[in-house]
């Protein structure tokens, strides 16, 4: 299957009342005056939502007259208005503030080139950027790493390297826990023991390097979204901090009783994003965050007040120096029956991975074609 090389995103829908009133910002507790001129190293954070996050609930197309027919009970009347057509899920109050200050935007109706409905295959395609599942054994971010300046490091808040980061550059991983610190003597002797092991040796070196960065954290366990956001900010900061960081979130598979589950998930995501921004301080201006999922969910509500596996979804892009653009970028495909993909899913009109790659390239000042070539090197 040929990759749909992404067209420039144009928006067909009319923009009615594009500028939201500033009263909508009242919910945000985020200070909105961070200098945009920080000069540190550029940082990129990929937050993956495993389990197929429902883009139609996260960025709700209230302007589409078919929305309520398809999923009446899942439409939030108190969703946070963005631009007259789209509104954010009410649990995303902090993120809504970032939209209005130009530090966040959504890509809607986007998908990878994967068109089936298996979580596992879809996550593999999202992470490898391969033409099909399990075709490539490196990640798309892993393949970007060699394009960045020497010494640029990748890290994941995870026990092992997630697929998206795997490539020729070693990946450090970090999982906070409550365990007591081991004896330094043990660590020193293990270094000798592992040095001869081709698999464990490099991992041990990474573990010791990460330990230096996180030394000040103590052994605190990550709790809710805010702790994770704070931890991520620490991992990105300072000398030896990560330049490319991946955070995994799960629990997005909402087959039943979606409303309550999603509100909790999104509230945690909102806290994560707000805490990350606050924790980064001035470095936020040099940071780009992508939040994306493997595929969306059915446009219609299913028989158990949830949604099943769908196709296109929404992704979020956040950062202190996003180039100017619309709050929601989308070539909106529409939600009438004959506009749905397979008669059931939001139809993809944007290619998520090539959009992400372009944003990544622009952020790091890479030549776009080189980055796109690295993306498709997997195929």
């Amino acid at each position, binding site marked *: 299957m040929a990759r749909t090389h992404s067209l420039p995103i144009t928006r067909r829908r009319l923009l009615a009342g594009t500028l939201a009133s500033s009263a909508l910002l009242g919910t945000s507790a985020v200070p909105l005056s961070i200098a945009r001129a920080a000069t540190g190293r550029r940082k990129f954070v990929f937050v993956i939502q495993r389990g197929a996050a429902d883009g139609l609930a996260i960025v709700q197309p209230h302007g589409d007259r078919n929305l309520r027919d398809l999923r009446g009970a899942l439409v939030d009347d108190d969703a946070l208005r963005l631009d007259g057509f789209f509104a954010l899920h009410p649990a995303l109050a902090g993120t809504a503030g970032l939209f209005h200050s130009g530090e966040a935007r959504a890509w809607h109706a986007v998908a990878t080139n994967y068109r089936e409905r298996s*979580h596992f295959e879809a996550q593999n395609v999202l992470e490898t950027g391969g033409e099909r599942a399990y075709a490539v054994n490196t990640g798309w971010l892993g393949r970007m790493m060699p394009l960045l300046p020497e010494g640029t490091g990748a890290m994941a808040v995870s026990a092992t*390297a997630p697929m998206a980061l795997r490539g020729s550059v070693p990946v450090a*991983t970090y*999982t906070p826990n409550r*365990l*007591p610190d081991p004896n330094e003597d043990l660590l020193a002797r293990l270094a000798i*023991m592992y040095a001869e092991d081709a698999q464990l040796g490099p991992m041990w070196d990474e573990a010791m390097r990460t330990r230096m960065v996180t030394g000040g954290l103590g052994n605190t366990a990550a709790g809710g979204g805010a702790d994770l956001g704070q931890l991520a900010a620490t991992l990105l900061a300072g000398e030896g901090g990560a330049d490319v960081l991946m955070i995994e979130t799960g629990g997005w598979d909402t087959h039943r009783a979606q409303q309550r589950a999603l509100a909790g998930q999104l509230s945690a995501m909102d806290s994560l994003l707000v805490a990350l921004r606050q924790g980064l301080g001035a470095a936020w201006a040099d940071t780009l965050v992508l939040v994306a999922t493997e595929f969306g969910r059915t446009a219609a509500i299913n*028989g158990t007040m*949830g949604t099943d596996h769908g196709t296109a979804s929404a992704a979020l892009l956040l950062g202190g120096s996003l180039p100017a653009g619309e709050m929601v970028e989308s070539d909106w495909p529409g939600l009438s029956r004959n506009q749905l993909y397979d008669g059931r899913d939001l139809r993809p009109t944007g290619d998520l991975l090539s959009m992400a790659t372009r944003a990544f390239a622009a952020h790091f000042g890479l030549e776009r074609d080189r980055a796109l070539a690295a993306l498709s090197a997997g195929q």
Partner: protein
Amino acid sequence: MTAPIRIATDRFGLGAIPGETLPGDLRGWLTSQLRQFDPAPAALGSRTARMAELARILPTRVANNRLKREGNQAEQDAALASNRELGEDIRRAHAEAVLARLRVATASATPFAERLVHFWSNHFSVSMQKVLVGSFVADFEFSAVRPHVMGNFRDLLRSAVLHPAMLQYLDQNISIGPSSPLAGRYRRLQGLNENLGREVLELHTLGAGGGYSQADVTELALALTGWTVAGLGGGGIAREIDWAPGEAGFLPAAHEPGRRTVLGRNYAEDGQQQAVAILRDLALHPSTARHIATKLARHFIADDPPAAAIERLQRAYQDSGGDLPSVYAALIDEPEVWRAQRTKIRNPWDWMVATNRAVGVERSARLAELSPGLLQQMGQSVWRVDSPAGWGDTAQDWAGSGALLTRVEIASLVARRVGNVADAAALAREVLGDALHSTTSDAIDSVTEQPLRLALLFASPEFQRR
């Protein structure tokens, strides 16, 4: 103490027990375990007791949930308090079951058979992350998996898919046919949910790329409607059921009437037998044979198993019509298993069990109680996997810089907890045999403090692999 012994004890089995003498005929030893396997050791308790516990918990929970919605403030508070207590009971039952599983694995004289139980339990993953009732997940492994591990895959499949834990975990308990009598009666909240139908095809039988379509998923989901769990149906379903709370069963009024077509084959309307007939055919499908052969080869041989080994296991499966002991026999005869040298990184469960076995059954009593919490720290809490696909089975799933440091921290903690075992250097020779590298024995010899010596053994590259 040669390599084949380590393959028999570590790769097929669960790790060496000090002082254990293996028969010279290793293949014969492994084969005999298939016959000697005890599907219901006393330590795991009885199904009747587990179900009685559920029968106690479920109605109270259902009543509490109604009070939480409809009661006055005092009733709501009481319902919340009662649910909290039940939650504690559930957690306690779960913790006891995990400990029982660990003790059986630690002391087992048929470790190959026990490894197969763990393998199949993971193949058909259910998780307490979602399942409301903790003892469901233990009952799933003890009552639905163990009795069929030495039987035909067809029976294992049926038993696992239709167990209440699976029906609940993948939302089957609330899925009802859109044209069923029940759908007419309770219009608002009830309808089809295709979660179980999809995962049966993708995970339990044919495997990804096994040749099924979205239409097959929907058809199987429709055929499965009616299979539900008493006391967990919610809404209208609960009121229609007269069998014991917690038990799975078939509610004809929820079943979608009509013929179904799955993978081009037609199935007449046959009530509860319709889904059973589809499952039976899926069990015999060549894609299922391939899928299972690949997973077994990956588990026992290498992360990237040799194609020839997969083919031989697949043939054994197909030639025997899914008879699992025939497939295990092919695995024992598989030259690649005996060739590969400690290529598999032990997952946290394997590592924890091997550690318990290494310190000896008696001494492990102090360690066992600690083990469930440590497994959680290592990211493999028993029966709490976060995906119906189960735990990953390759080094990439378990080896990373963060995971390695955590394992070292735990090795250090375990060694302190176990205290002064017999000399660690001698123990290393005993449990690792020929696999013990001089770098490791030198490191152990270079320190005097006993817990530190033991930590070096448990953290050594050799001990982390099987």
